[in-house]
């Protein structure tokens, strides 16, 4: 579903991402973990088309992001690390707007709203402005908005920051359910327990380079750790 090939991103002279390659298959959850400034968010933004890679290429569903950005964007749902939305837009309006941008038929938009609100039990707060929402509620609206057009690939930058324990649990279940139905997920996170719990494969990033990729079992072996070792222990060894 997603093919990242040798992407490099320079900000001035600084190399934020250095020749990173990986693939994500249909129905797979792939997590990228790594310390601050390791290039995780830059990679996600490059895949979404928010940033242009200095070199390398990204393909979504076999289509080149740089050549056909509108086609690839239509297949992607993006949940940013900082879900800032226009202060004076309500949650409900944001869901309508996102659907309009992604070309969801008008007849379906209205019917979708109650379903989307139900996911995080957001009913009752949908008519408030974004400036009145807590960080957690903003995050919840950004998650349901990303899923409102049935994307084939979800790009998630820090999925549960700001969510309460119930919200975090719901979010994890949504992602698992989504993958089960054939959706692909790229998860970027510092919350290693979540990555360990839901990922099929994990990539460890440091200084813009992908240091290790594999299932948790493969990473444990690479790190020379026991089979019971947690992702945190693996991370400390490899990152």
């Amino acid at each position, binding site marked *: 579903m997603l093919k990242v090939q040798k992407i490099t991103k320079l900000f001035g002279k600084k190399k934020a991402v250095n020749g990173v390659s990986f693939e994500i298959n249909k129905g797979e959850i792939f997590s990228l973990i790594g310390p601050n400034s390791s290039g995780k968010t830059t990679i996600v933004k490059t895949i*979404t*088309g*928010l*940033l*242009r890679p200095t070199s390398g290429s990204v393909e979504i569903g076999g289509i080149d992001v740089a050549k056909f*950005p*509108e*086609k690839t*964007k*239509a297949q*992607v749902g*993006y949940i*940013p690390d*900082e879900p*800032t*939305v*226009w*202060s*004076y*837009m*309500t949650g*409900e*309006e944001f869901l*309508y*707007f*996102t*659907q*309009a*941008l*992604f*070309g969801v038929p*008008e007849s379906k*938009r*209205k019917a979708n709203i109650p379903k989307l609100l139900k996911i995080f039990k957001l009913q*009752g*707060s*949908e*008519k*408030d*402005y974004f*400036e*009145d929402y807590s960080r957690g509620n903003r995050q919840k609206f950004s998650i349901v908005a990303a899923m409102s057009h049935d994307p084939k690939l979800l790009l998630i930058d820090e999925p549960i920051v700001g969510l309460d324990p119930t919200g975090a649990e719901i979010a994890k279940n949504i992602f698992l359910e989504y993958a089960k139905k054939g959706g692909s997920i790229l998860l970027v996170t510092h919350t290693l327990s979540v990555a360990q719990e839901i990922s099929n494969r994990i990539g460890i990033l440091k200084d813009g380079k992908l240091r290790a990729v594999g299932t948790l079992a493969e990473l444990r072996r690479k790190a020379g750790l026991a089979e019971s070792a947690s992702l945190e222990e693996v991370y400390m060894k490899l990152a």
Partner: protein
Amino acid sequence: MLRLFLQFELGKVKKYFKTNTTAKVITAVLFLVVFVFLGMGIYGFFASGFRYIYFGIEEEFKIPLFLFIYETFLLILAGVIVVSSMVSGVFNLFRGQNDAWFIGTPGYKIFPKLIFVKSLFVSIWPLIIIFLPVVLAFNKMYQLGFGSFLLIIFSVILLLVLTNAITLSLIVFIGYLYFLVSKIITPVAFHFKGFVAILLVTVIVNLVYVWKVVSQLDLVRIFKADNADAIITTANIGSYFEAFPTHSLAMEILSLQRGNFNEALTHAGNLTLIALVAIIAWWLVSYLFYPLWQVFQEGNNKETEKKNTRSGKVYQFQGSQLTALFKKESLIASRNWKNVLWFSFLACIWLVQIGVSVIMEHNIRRHETDISATLAILQTIQFVIAAYFICAFTLRFVFPSFSIEKKTSWILGTAPVSMTRLFFGKYFFYTSFFVLLGLVMNYINVNVLNVSITQALYSTTLLVVTIVFVVTFGMILGALFPNKESDDPGVISTSMSGLFFTASSLLYGGLGAWTLYQALTKGELVFIEAFVLFSLLLVAVMLSRVSYVMRRSIFD
């Protein structure tokens, strides 16, 4: 605490100059040059105006006319300062970024005082750019001593102090009153938007009152021009203005002009007294600030308690992607109270010009004066003012429209929408809005002067073309040079590209005015045709480069 605050503000300036230093220093120097030229222009204008009145006006009219000019000039200046302090004051007091940390410190009591200092500092610009050149021109004409010059400057500072103190006191007082009313009468909801709406209504009510008074002003009767035997005294003129605090300063200037320093000192004393009363009022009212600030923090929780109570239109963004983007712009623009207030502020200043036109129209009609000789000049002046305001509106709202989307760019940037469509969603909104605004203002102006259909057609065509050109230019430039450091429209507008836009669009507006004057006085249509053709050609060229421009914008 004050020292800490000043250090913090100074630190912000230093931090600003740390990145892109050369460009920012050049911009600052260019701004200084522009201000100096503007000051020189104002100086020249007033120096020649004073000279004309001094040598060209009959003796018995001279002194009352001077007083009338001082009174109206100071009143307009004070009005502008009051409205500007109100707009910035509301947000500085209750919606400042990162203020919670300050209010959370033991030094929170000083906060309203700091806002007063900040407000005073910001309103000093009219003193430097407008008043200083005027006082210098006045000084040159009447050869006043250094003492008189200092006295005027001191009094102007007092005027700034008292207008700011009164405005901030009003803001807090009205806010507290609103809070009390909402506590007693429970159906009255207390929230920030309601507060801003009340302030807006207060300003509008006052404006309507001033409008009513001003539109009835009979200049001929004030100056008793219809009665050759009548004696005009300064008391006659003064009686129209004595209710305003600016009256003392106007009288002080007049006294200095007449060489009566002691009388000027008495008026300065009066002004000092009024300023002291205003400061005491602010000092007392500022005690209400902290509890008011606290309840404004509760506003959000109160809102969420009442589920689904927000009435009004829910935008469903029906239609094409482009329509959805257009509707989004209109939603964001109409609900952003800060923008609405700034827009109202600029519109108020424009209304002053229209108010002057209305007075003129009343007087012309009442006394059947023949103005055909000066009609072209008056119509051109109206065009210049309209073009100026279109440039000001574009600089404040259109030019920063891409840069302020920095934090929300992820929504549009990740959507399957072409960059061209993103541009045109904004473009159609701003162009249609400003064309509509320009047409309304032009309709009023044209009616006031009662010009022929042909003359009205000239000015309308030129104004519409000017608006389309200026908005296109502002939007292209804003997208091409997005400000990645700030999302404050005030800061974005003062960048080098903002300065370039200001200078170019004002020059372009000037060219449009010259073209109109040529058509009105000589019937030379070739200039209008060339101007329209040239402008539309440039607009077409700019719009054809949209996809390249957007590749450089914040979305990339």
